[in-house]
């Protein structure tokens, strides 16, 4: 049976992925035992420390040896492995519908989101999806299981470009809405005020989320390769401006470079994983690089 939205799970792409586990940089909370360390203490083999007994504690956790030496009741605490909750935030604004190559930024981001969700669920973690422009369209909380993966892929296949984007507002709202700590992956072209975006991403940091940003850009956006004079039309606002690209390519690329550098450095200061991805970059290479980066940081 063909799964709806399976076009986002290109087997060739997934086959090229490196044999790396997606590791969380921090401990995340989870309901089920998994490969990730949980900030909660539970039943496991790895001892962490003791604390004084309080009423209601399970008596099986009382360390009787300590009681024998100090005549005080202490309970043993152990590390407990939990599942990772990863939520992908996909920008579906109209500016994402731009692509001079064979793939638009929105398509590229959709493939990226699907690949990440697939990986999370296949390693018994949980994946969620949020699509947004200036408001939230789809909100699929992080869950595990193949059925949920199908739901995510179905949502991705139905994505249509929306009007203007408002990344900061959406991020602030989602920071309040996503209660349990986990991983937040933002896929967007971030065409907004960099300072506001960075403040919004810090809101996730305050909620103890692990934040990663895929900054998706088209080559034409960065290099402005056009020659002839053209009426450039803003895809979101509809505003037009006659531009001679040949005469202003240098100035344009400097401005774009400044923007990208500001985003990258801001993310680094906020301890946010920042990945600039061009739509001309092979998707598997982008994912592989991201996973390698995450693995290195977890060690």
């Amino acid at each position, binding site marked *: 049976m063909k799964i709806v939205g399976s076009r986002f799970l290109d087997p060739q792409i997934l086959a090229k992925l490196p044999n790396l586990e997606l590791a969380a940089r921090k401990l995340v909370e989870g309901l089920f035992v998994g490969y990730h360390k949980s900030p909660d203490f539970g039943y496991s083999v790895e001892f962490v420390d003791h604390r004084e007994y309080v009423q209601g504690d399970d008596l099986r956790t009382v360390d009787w040896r300590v009681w024998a030496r100090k005549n005080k009741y202490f309970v043993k605490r152990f590390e407990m492995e939990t599942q990772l909750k990863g939520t992908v935030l996909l920008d579906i604004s109209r*500016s*994402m519908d*731009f692509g001079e190559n064979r793939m638009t*930024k929105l398509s590229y981001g959709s493939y990226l989101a699907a690949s990440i969700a697939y990986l999370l669920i296949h390693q018994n973690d949980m994946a969620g999806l949020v699509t947004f422009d200036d408001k939230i369209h789809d909100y699929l909380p992080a869950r595990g299981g193949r059925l949920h993966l199908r739901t995510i892929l179905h949502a991705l296949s139905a994505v249509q470009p929306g009007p203007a984007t408002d990344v900061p507002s959406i991020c602030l709202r989602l920071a309040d809405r996503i209660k349990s700590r986990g991983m937040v992956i933002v896929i967007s*072209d971030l*065409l907004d005020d960099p300072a506001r975006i960075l403040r919004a991403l810090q809101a996730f940091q305050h909620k103890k989320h692990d934040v990663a940003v895929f900054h998706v850009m*088209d080559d034409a*956006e960065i290099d402005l390769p*056009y*020659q*002839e*004079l*053209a*009426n*450039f*039309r*803003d*895809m*979101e*606002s509809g*505003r*037009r*401006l*006659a*531009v*001679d690209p040949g*005469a*202003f390519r240098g*100035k*344009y690329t400097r*401005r*774009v470079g400044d*923007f990208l550098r500001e985003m990258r450095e801001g993310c680094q200061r906020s301890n946010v994983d920042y990945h600039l991805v061009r739509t001309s970059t092979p998707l598997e290479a982008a994912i592989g690089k991201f996973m390698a980066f995450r693995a290195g940081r977890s060690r």
Partner: protein
Amino acid sequence: MFLNAAFLIGISAIAVPIVIHLIHRQRYPDRAFPTLRFFDKTIKHNVIQRRLIDRLLLLLRVVALICLALGLSRPFWHGSVGERRTSLVILLDNSPSMARRHDGKPLLDQAKATVAGMLDRLGPGDRAEILLTSGTAPSAPASGKRLAQELVLRDGEPTAMLVSGPKGAALSVPGMTSDAARLQSAARAIPDGTPVTLASYSGGSAAEFGYDHGRLRALLDSVAVSSIPGNMQAAVSSAAEMLSRSGDGDRRVVIVSDLQAADWRGEPTSGLAGIDVNVVSIEPDPAVGPNLAIDDCTVSRPLAGLGQEVAASVTLHNYGSQASGQSTLRVVADAGVPIDTKIPAIPPRASLLVAVPMRASGHDHMLCSATIVNATDPFAYDNTWYFQIGVRPPVTALCVNGAVGATGADKSTFFVMNALATRGGGSAPSADARECETEELKNQKLFQYGVVLLADVTSLDADARQKLRQFVSDGGGLLIFANPNAAASEYNGWDFLPARVTGQKKAFQYVRSMAEKATAVADVRRRAGSTVSALTSNESLALEPAENATVLARFSDGLPALVEGRVGKGRVILAAASCHVSRSDWPLQPAFVLLVRELVQNLGANNASAAIGSRQIVGDGAAMAISAEHGGGTPELFRVATQAGDGSYQALAWYRRNDRLVMPEAAESGQYLLAVRPDPAPGLLAEPGLGADIVPVSVNHDARESDLTPATAGSIEKQLPGARVSLETATAAGVIDIGSGRDLWRWLVTGALIFLLCEGVIAWRWASESS
């Protein structure tokens, strides 16, 4: 003012860059882009700058194109008072000899190139005119029914409208038509698809100096070799007259010609005092090889009986400087089987007379041509000669025997019947002769005969006399051999005789002379020569010619022997002697046979209205008189036709001069038929064919054009007294100081071309970089 005003149309080319600019501006691509935040006002300002540059470039392109058009149209302004300007008359020789080829090209092309070079060197303030030494066709044909209708309906022009029908052609003459409504109706009635050609002979304005050098170039392009011999003297006179009206400081005549010696003979041209004359010789090529030409062609008899033998004597001349090779002379009569005659080599400057035997055939006339078939000379203009032979159809004659009761050789008709019978050698009989008795005459159907011959008839009753008179009045011929024994009163009672009988003569007499100008006996006189004096007799009648009669022959005593008179449409010839040996020795003489046959033929021939000579030279223009009967009323139709190779006739343009129908002077050499007949309606002739009165005309080249001997400097200077003459070759003609022009136009054109070239290079490089 502009010399080549036509190039001003080129200014409209500025529409091209403007349209391209507008199209290009409209085609700025509308490009969707994620955000405009990285573009700012500086970029927008630059776009405005770019548009300003575009508009500036557009302006420069437009200015460049305007400069180019203005430059090519050669603007000029009249110089200030006293400034030296040039009035130039170029005489271009377009006579037939300019059709000679040198290095594979006609001499005229070389001459035209030389003239074109002179026109290029003319300054804007210089005036010029081109005169041709040979005329061109006066017609300005326009084809197409619609155009014909427009011209006829709008202007009543042209003066001639030629409508080609499916089998022939007819020519309508609006100028002769007083009823314009009928003419226009006829023009409308021309069937669709009918080829229509208009020819106008209203005449152009006299040649004038002009600043429009473009017109001269167009005129030069249209110049072709004429078939008319050149008239250098008339052209030089025209040039002198034009220059006499010019007040310019530099007055100049340039003659571009092959300088045939024949063009520089005759009376010197006056009015050239103080005028510069540059004579440019176009490759006279004195070492021209063999150049055969037919100079003349005569026939042994211009009017021959059907089947009669005629000899055509063709005079060939080699005008070249080398002996000709063997060639063939081909004579064709009425598109029949050609008669080829081998021609031996002819030395340079030598002539050869070739006699070609022919036999008269056809109806009324035989149109012939003699052509040198395989001549190798470079000048084919003079290799064909056209000529014609009149053909008399067999005459039906009724011979009336005046000897009552006689039989055999005693009949007075015996000797005339013998004379009219078929001669030896297989020749055709000159007449279909029958005989009857005098009393049978009133029962004969005389309209079946062309000639009635009365042999010694002495008495006729009133009915017979009335019948004979009516026969002659209707166009028949009557030949009377008088009986010298008859009483004078018997003949004097006949009211149709050309002479009155005054008595009888009983003395030996012989025919001493025949009239020189009388066509009836011209052939007898020419062929019989002195043998006519053998026509002797001891008995004859004394005749006193009537007032309008013509004495064709006289006896030795001076009295008339033959008298011709006209009665109505026919003629009567009365002989004073008998046609029987019992009363005259005439029948025993060979000249008698000749006389009887020729007189019968002449009387039986049609009374053609031919009044033109049969020898016409190209450029003379052939004409025939239009009788009052035909020319007095309007409308009328006339036709001029030329005989094509297949025997059909093609209509030609023509015009009317007073009471004469005239072919254009520019007619090519060839055979022509001039015909005239009245017709009730103008326009298309319903029944193509030739008119009632037909005059054949043979038009031949002028032998002067064949002589390619170059003129000497002395003969040229002698023809141009008072002028400052200088002789140039075609290659040196470029150094002739012509023109006082300014070079503003050159700067305009050069600047515009340089700008456009740079534009092209920049555009090409930009396109290369873009691709």
